[in-house]
């Protein structure tokens, strides 16, 4: 097998002093910028991209990959510490991670996230190395019908995201789906729900919505009763996870890795489901589902692992097909082209040192992240001791800069304010933001693939059940629905007169 010689080539490329250095710089910069509130992985990479243009191709891509992991990790850090997710995946981490932080377990949550990510990153790096070509072939079997059915599975699973009323969670998903449809309809070019504002022709900005409904709503909640109670969290108890925490995270990390690796391969938006799917699975298999939403270790460990595994395997379509799976990967393609490497199906044979060097550097980058971040946890946790009234002007300024830097669109800033208001109102009405965000990312995918499937099948709806993968996914969705609803229906009878919380 050439796998070993290939990996050896990769590691010898990636461990050259120069490349190690750029990997480190990338991871460091990615973490530092990504950790600024309101600045997620996409914004971080867009900001740091031009810096990499000056370098050698291999170094530049290794640095960029480092920025990507670093930014993701940094994004999770802000999600945990101040409930400010910058990506759809860290929105899931925010649910239980922030609650852990409020209970004084911020250090443990951060360590769990780091260790889970590292494990998932290691496993999926080897998956990429060994199985990239065959996995690509499977991914190519996914047409519009399959993606639609996959999104249905995601939608059905979203019910488990709620820890309060299921009806409200469903309403939030529906609202999110509708908000996701704002913008130009790609099939007819008709602008929808844009209120005649051209700046919204490409839809609402994800970061603006996420920062609004999570972060700003949280700031406002903390401000509402300043006089009567202190908003500070409980005292920080220990920086590292306890023995029980470790025991509680093993299984979720393993499951999250599997889920993330599989979904990450699908170029049509599979990776965004990874964290949500993992959360759902953990809540279902947990012996204490009531802990979810109140600081469950599994609710941080699973999604973070799934997210990182998905991030790694989403390199597979890029490296084997030359096709970017998400906006971040599209930025990577841009970087490659500027370096004079046009990505395509032959990158592995034409540029073996580059191909395997990047794969090896993925693992090295993840290792660096852990080594770098475990000691940094103490520092991050200290940030929580900054008085809140000092912290939030800083948060607001970085949010504004981060959101504006992506597309220089001032209307995105107006969205931040609008969704901050919406998020606050919703939180006052005991509606949760996570299902809304899931709906928001799924909305366009769901509709797009539904309509595309119907076009491709010439208007024959049986396409969803006659295509085997699609049929299997729909069957799975039905199964999830049954599992979710049966126990709750039973419970409902007993709880008719109890408040729905």
């Amino acid at each position: 097998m050439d796998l070993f010689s290939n990996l050896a080539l990769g590691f010898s490329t990636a461990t050259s002093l120069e490349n190690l250095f750029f990997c480190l710089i990338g991871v460091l910069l990615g973490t530092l910028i990504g950790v600024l509130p309101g600045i997620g992985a996409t914004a971080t990479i867009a900001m740091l991209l031009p810096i990499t243009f000056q370098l050698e191709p291999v170094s530049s891509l290794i640095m960029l990959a480092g920025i990507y992991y670093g930014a993701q990790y940094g994004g999770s850090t802000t999600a945990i510490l101040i409930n400010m997710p910058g990506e759809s995946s860290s929105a899931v981490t925010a649910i239980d991670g922030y609650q852990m932080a409020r209970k004084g377990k911020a250090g443990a949550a951060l360590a769990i996230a780091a260790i889970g990510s590292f494990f998932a990153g290691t496993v999926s790096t080897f998956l990429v190395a060994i199985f990239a070509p065959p996995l690509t072939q499977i991914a190519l079997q996914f047409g519009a019908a399959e993606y639609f059915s996959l999104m249905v599975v995601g939608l059905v699973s979203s019910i488990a995201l709620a820890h309060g009323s299921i009806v409200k969670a469903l309403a939030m998903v529906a609202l999110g789906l509708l908000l996701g449809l704002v913008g130009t309809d790609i099939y007819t070019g008709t602008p929808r729900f844009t209120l005649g504002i051209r700046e919204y022709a490409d839809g609402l900005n994800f970061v603006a919505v996420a920062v609004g409904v999570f972060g700003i709503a949280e700031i406002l909640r903390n401000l509402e009763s300043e006089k009567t109670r202190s908003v500070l969290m409980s005292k920080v108890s220990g920086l590292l996870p306890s023995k029980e925490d470790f025991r509680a995270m093993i299984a979720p990390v393993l499951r999250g890795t599997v889920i993330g690796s599989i979904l990450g391969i699908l170029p049509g938006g599979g990776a965004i489901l990874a964290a949500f799917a993992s959360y759902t699975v953990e809540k279902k298999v947990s012996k204490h589902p009531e802990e979810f939403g109140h600081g469950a270790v599994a609710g941080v460990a699973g999604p973070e692992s799934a997210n990182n595994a998905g991030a790694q395997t989403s390199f597979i379509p890029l490296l084997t097909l030359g096709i970017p799976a998400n906006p971040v990967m599209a930025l990577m393609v841009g970087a490659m082209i500027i370096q004079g490497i046009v990505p395509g199906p032959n990158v592995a044979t034409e540029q073996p040192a580059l191909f395997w060097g990047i794969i090896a550097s993925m693992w090295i980058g993840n290792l660096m992240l852990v080594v770098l971040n475990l000691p940094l946890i103490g520092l991050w946790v200290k940030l929580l001791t900054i008085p809140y009234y000092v912290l939030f002007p800083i948060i607001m300024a970085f949010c504004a800069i981060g959101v504006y830097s992506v597309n220089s669109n001032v209307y995105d800033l107006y969205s931040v304010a609008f969704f901050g208001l919406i998020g606050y109102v919703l939180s006052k009405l005991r509606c949760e933001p996570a299902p809304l965000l899931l709906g928001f990312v799924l909305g366009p995918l769901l509709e797009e693939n539904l309509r595309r499937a119907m076009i491709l099948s010439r208007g024959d709806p049986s396409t969803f059940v006659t295509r085997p993968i699609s049929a299997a996914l729909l069957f799975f969705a039905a199964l999830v629905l049954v599992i979710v609803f049966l126990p709750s229906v039973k419970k409902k009878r007993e709880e008719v007169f109890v408040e729905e919380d």
Partner: protein
Amino acid sequence: MNSLKVDTTNLICGLLLIATGLFFALESLDLELGTALRMGPGYFPFILACVLILLGGIVLGQAVRVQGEPIGAIAWRGMVFILPAPIIFGLTVRGLGFVPAVFICALVAAFASQRMKPLTAVALSAALTVFSLLVFSYGLGLPFRTFGPWLGF
């Protein structure tokens, strides 16, 4: 008192959801609906809007059946200062430039808290502006104008 027990939270929530659903439904009707087999741009959103109205109705129904917790304090001061901050940044970043925009944005947000003293707010905003200028403009080379045309540059 034999008045109905009403959960204000769910009452408002249900009404808001229905109103939002109605807005989207009406907007969708302006678009071409198409049929289930040949969907137009309005079809999918119209279905979703109807689902939202339905769910709003259920929440409304629940409001009458159970007594909930009160809504609690509302962060009026927070809303007045926090929400305009990004808007002000948006309105000034191209005209006044990056430095004044960051400064004003942070300054406005700072006054959302009653504990913030004016002098601290100014100092904090100034420090933040310098930091942002160094990191984003000089460090990362983002294409922001430091001072904009409104200031005669």
